[in-house]
């Protein structure tokens, strides 16, 4: 018996297309509840108004099936491919790119990808950034994340001294949000990747953003760190849209892995309030 499960590239493209259309037009329920909660605790009228506008925008986008934000992002895709999957009828990477191409065309989304030097637009929002992992099983889990430029520009990597410890990490993260100020469209979600190498820390920070806001951190050390960093960030006074207030971040999510004895890489990936990501398993 053939131990491999066949998955056609056509299904992969269709899934990627559907996910990007959903992600760009439907704000997650977890984000909406966090915004509502924040609106109840905000003292300032201006901050409450800014949060209310974000909720109203999400309702309009959902109803009209239109983009939540004009920056429909660089298309980031995480593909966890089961080792017992046999991808047929084409090339996995090209199938993902095709799904992106179709989503951005049919969804009337902005094409925001260009040549770094000439700045000439590629015209179809490809290439997507694809992170592929081989995992056990006979399925493919695809997660899509349209990532806006403003919040990505406010992200940073810190190669700390190995002995900088929790305080050093907290300072780097809170400092990044402080420096970014109103630019990344607060209230933000802060993804923190600790450990690994400089590239690994950045991927961990991005993956940290995929955790739903209503899912708890399972590691108690990191849960404490997340709470403390969030409290400090919300003392900065930046507030929704940078117009002042208590809600500069909705959440801080940390993912950690071991690192080299000489290093302490810390990546901070900032996500705007239009925290868009969807997944499907095929």
């Amino acid at each position, binding site marked *: 018996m053939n131990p491999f499960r066949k998955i056609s590239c056509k299904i992969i493209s269709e899934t990627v297309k559907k996910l990007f259309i959903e992600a760009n037009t439907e704000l997650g329920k977890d984000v909406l509840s966090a915004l509502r909660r924040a609106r109840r605790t905000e003292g300032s*009228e*201006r901050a409450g*108004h*800014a949060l209310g*506008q*974000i909720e*109203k*925008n999400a309702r*309009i*986008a959902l109803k*009209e099936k*239109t*983009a*939540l*934000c*004009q*920056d*429909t992002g660089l298309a980031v895709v995480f593909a966890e491919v089961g080792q017992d999957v046999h991808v047929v009828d084409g090339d996995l990477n090209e199938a993902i790119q095709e799904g992106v191409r179709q989503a951005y065309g049919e969804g*009337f*989304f*902005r*094409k*925001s990808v260009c040549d770094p030097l000439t*700045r000439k*637009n590629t*015209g179809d929002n490809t290439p997507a950034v694809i992170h592929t992992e081989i995992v056990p099983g006979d399925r493919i889990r695809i997660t899509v994340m349209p990532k*806006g*430029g*403003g919040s990505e*520009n406010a992200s940073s990597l810190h190669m700390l001294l190995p002995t900088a410890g929790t*305080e050093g990490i*907290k*300072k780097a993260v*809170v*400092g990044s949000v*402080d420096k970014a*100020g*109103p*630019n990344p*469209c607060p209230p933000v979600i802060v993804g923190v990747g600790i450990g690994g190498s400089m590239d690994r820390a950045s991927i961990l920070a991005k993956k940290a953003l995929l955790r739903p806001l209503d899912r708890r951190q399972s590691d108690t050390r990191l849960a404490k760190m997340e709470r403390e960093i969030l*409290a*400090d*960030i919300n*003392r*900065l*006074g*930046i*507030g929704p*849209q*940078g*117009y*002042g*207030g*208590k809600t500069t971040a909705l959440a801080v999510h940390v993912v950690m892995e071991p690192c080299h004895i000489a290093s302490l890489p810390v990546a901070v990936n900032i996500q*705007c*309030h*239009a925290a868009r990501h969807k997944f499907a398993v095929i």
Partner: protein
Amino acid sequence: MKDAIHITTPLTDKVCRSLKAGDPVLLSGEVYTARDVAHRRLHEAIGKGKALPLDIKGKIIFYAAPTPARPGRVIGSIGPTTGSRMDACTPELLRMGLKGMIGKGKRSPEVIEAVKKYGAVYFGAPGGVAALMARHIRRADVVAYEDLGPEAIMRLEVSEMPLVVLTDTCGRDLYENVRGVMKSPKILK
């Protein structure tokens, strides 16, 4: 919160001077979109002494590039991008008579100084609420740099677009004003 102030283009000196950082505003009239590459082209044209594709005097630039319009619609989703990326070109545009900018995010001290010197206003549009903002656009026409696709310069007719005054003619800055209110966390000291 104060009631929003209704203003209509063209922006006069009197209207500009009456606005204060933090004021909510509903803007109606004409604005022009331009962002990164369009600014670079305007800057190059100024450097070479060439005519600009639009007369900047008295105008408002909106740092924006919308999503494409669906059939039958005026425009797709639209909202501001980060203004600081346009900082290098902004003082010369203000010197040439640009009266207003709509964007999000902090500006350089040079831009704030030029806003003060030339009596202009930097307005903030809410970021990431682009489906809502689109409802305030009545008409959109590409007027220059069509080859830039979403980054082309467009002339927009807007109606009661909800904005906030970020930097006023006295150089007061909303972002700076709100930061002093809360005590900075100890970790940054």
